[in-house]
């Protein structure tokens, strides 16, 4: 009774209720239960991330052990990045790759989703086949495209040659090498955007569509003024996922072009890989990676904000 009266008095006075001993105990037990999981999480994810940031402040070079904990020039790697032409180029290549792959995957994914938005057995079977590129291991995808892009063994090149229109090797052309990566990446990942948008399409309410049709809207008007606005949150989420994933592009570039010809297809994470594993400059590579992590967080935050706004508007 005394506790209840105390609770009532505190409620009345606007003072937060004091926790009972049972509640304190419950909270403590919960914390104890969570601690092992939190400790594992810290060791597995946070510790390497912290080590990455710490390493980025050193000139760590695997061949020079003394560089491991040398903090004499903590911003040296970051200043080098600002002066590094190849890093700047890699960011620009990354921007182009991300922009074109995300836009094309959204466009193609949306178009295919519209076509497959029907509930028939045939369409469902076709829908499944469209998912194949997405579930293949990335290295397999890269090898498939390596074959297609290599004139000596490519059926595409053989066919074009047979009909009198021989084509040069795309992956060694400075004009087309990046496009060869974009095409392969779009092929691999448009099923993902298709899947998300198809799910969103099937969740759309019928009323606005029927109302628009009754009002005499054409197919394109229905699509443009009704379907597309309703799909915007799903498009933004799909775009965000693909944008973040595009920054991790690696196997296609490693197998198809090695970042070349020259540095035409050298994206930022590939450049970080070269610095770390070909040259042993782990400190410099860590600085590149920290910048990439920061950029990815910023992009994610930006898009989540946009999506959040959209959802609120909706």
């Amino acid at each position, binding site marked *: 009774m005394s506790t209840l009266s105390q609770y009532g008095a505190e409620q009345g006075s606007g003072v937060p209720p004091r926790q009972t001993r049972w509640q304190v105990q419950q909270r403590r037990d919960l914390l104890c239960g969570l601690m092992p999981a939190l400790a594992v999480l810290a060791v597995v994810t946070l510790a390497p991330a912290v080590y990455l940031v710490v390493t980025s402040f050193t*000139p760590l*070079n*695997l*061949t*020079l*052990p003394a560089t491991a904990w040398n903090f004499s020039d903590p911003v040296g790697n970051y200043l*080098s990045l600002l*002066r*590094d*032409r*190849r890093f700047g180029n890699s960011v620009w290549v990354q921007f182009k790759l991300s922009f074109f792959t995300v836009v094309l995957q959204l466009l193609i994914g949306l178009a295919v989703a519209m076509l497959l938005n029907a509930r028939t057995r045939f369409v469902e079977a076709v829908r499944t086949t469209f998912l194949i590129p997405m579930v293949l291991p990335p290295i397999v995808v890269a090898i498939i495209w390596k074959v297609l*892009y*290599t*004139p*000596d063994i490519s059926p595409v090149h053989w066919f074009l040659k047979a009909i009198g229109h021989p084509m*040069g*090797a795309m*992956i*060694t*052309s*400075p004009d087309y090498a990046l496009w060869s990566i974009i095409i392969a990446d779009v092929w691999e990942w448009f099923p993902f955007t298709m899947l998300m948008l198809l799910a969103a399409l099937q969740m759309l309410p019928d009323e606005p569509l029927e109302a628009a049709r009754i009002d005499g809207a054409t197919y394109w008007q229905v699509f443009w003024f009704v379907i597309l606005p309703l799909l915007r949150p799903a498009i933004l989420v799909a775009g965000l996922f693909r944008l973040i994933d595009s920054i991790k592009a690696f196997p296609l570039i490693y197998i*198809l*072009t*090695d970042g*070349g*010809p*020259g*540095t*035409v297809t050298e994206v930022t994470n590939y450049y970080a890989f*070269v610095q770390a*594993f*070909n*040259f*042993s*400059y782990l400190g*410099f590579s860590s600085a590149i990676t920290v910048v990439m992590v920061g950029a990815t967080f910023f992009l994610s935050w930006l898009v989540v904000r946009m999506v959040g706004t959209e959802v609120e508007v909706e």
Partner: protein
Amino acid sequence: MRKRNLTKSADDRSVSRRKFLGLTAAAGVGAVAAGVEAAGPVGKGSALFAQAPARAGAARQFAGITINGAMFQHSFSAILKEYVPEFEQKTGMKVNLELQAFPVYNQRADLELSTKGSGYDFLNVTFIYSGRWIGAGWFANLEEFIKDPKLTPPEWDAADFAGGPMVPFKDAKGDRHGFPWLGEVQAMTVAQPDLIEKAGMKLPETYDELMKVLAATNDKEGVKAYVTHKTHHWMWVHFLHGFGGNVFKDPPGNLTPTLDSPAAIQAAEFYANILRNYCPEGVLSYTDDQMVAAQAQGRANISMHTLSWTMPVADPKKSKVADKVAYVMPPAGPKGLFPGVGSHGLGIPIGSRKKEAAWEFIRWALSKETIWRMVKERDYTSPCRPSVLNHPDFKKGMTFNGRDLAVLSLKIFEMAEKGGYMKYRTVPVFPQVGDKINKAIEVVATKQMPAEAAMKQAQAEAIADLKKAGIKIDA
């Protein structure tokens, strides 16, 4: 025509397979009587085999010990792995030998060595990493093992390794940190010399002649005149040397890059011209295998890669041009002839806790007997021991369409040793500079930049990278 089976080509005086195996087995159990004659590259045998029982006894001192090692996938390492059980039986040791793909091996070994851990007791010393690994002190100095007669009997003959292939395994003082199992030389492989003859020309001996031959024979009978692969820092540097340039100012002492020298610019333009005009479509993405396949399938004629890579062009099972392929000395540039030499070896990581046992294994793996056995039984074509290279049986087996490749190899090994021009390749920072060369050549070949601008950019980037590694650069 090549004699495919070295064993069959041996004359009566040489070591037959059965006799050789018998001797090896006998040495293992200590049952060989002193005075057994063993002709062939192992020498007159008496000294070696007279001591065999004692050595076999000494080898048993490591019985029960397990050693771990790793190499990259290669015909040598595959054969070695097959032979390992015999070594285990002989010594009572257990040997875990891991084989990995070349790039995977190098990256793993690089990380493992950098920790100075004891995970591996012997490792492959990869050619282009040798400077970095040995320079950083990651491989044990083998001199103390070599000089100790208890660990290394004189008949093992540490001097019987060709000088050129030994270079990457020596430190600045000349101490040895590894011994080569592969010695490869860069030769000119002409898959279809008849096309050149039909054009009324001879095999090119100078750069001028090479360009004339390429211009005259390109696309004749659907064959591209030249083929190469994407590792330009290997395929281009002999041209750089030929024009009088170098990768560094004076390696290994002065590692100031010299990629923007007039000779380097000239060599880049020269090589890019070949890539643009005389090679198959897409050559910039070619791997070694694609290059060799283009020659073996009759789609491309001339290449300048190592013999160990281009040998399949002479294999009737794999090649349409096996009956006519010619392996010859590469052409000389205005400043001379500088064919490349490469080698891979075995060494002991500094962190190993079983160094003596590891040395016992390396000694066995690279002994005259094991190498000669690989040559006889498995057609191994790239040994580094002159006693094998000079042996008549080996020379017979290495004669292709009338050309003796053993002689060619020895000559190039000698040129590289005397000329010292391969020192650029085994310095610790070569991977960084090699990357700049690859990029620059691609940029010039695809006309993204003229040669001068591309090489100046490569030079600037190389300097920036080397400064990161603490290398002193000349002003």
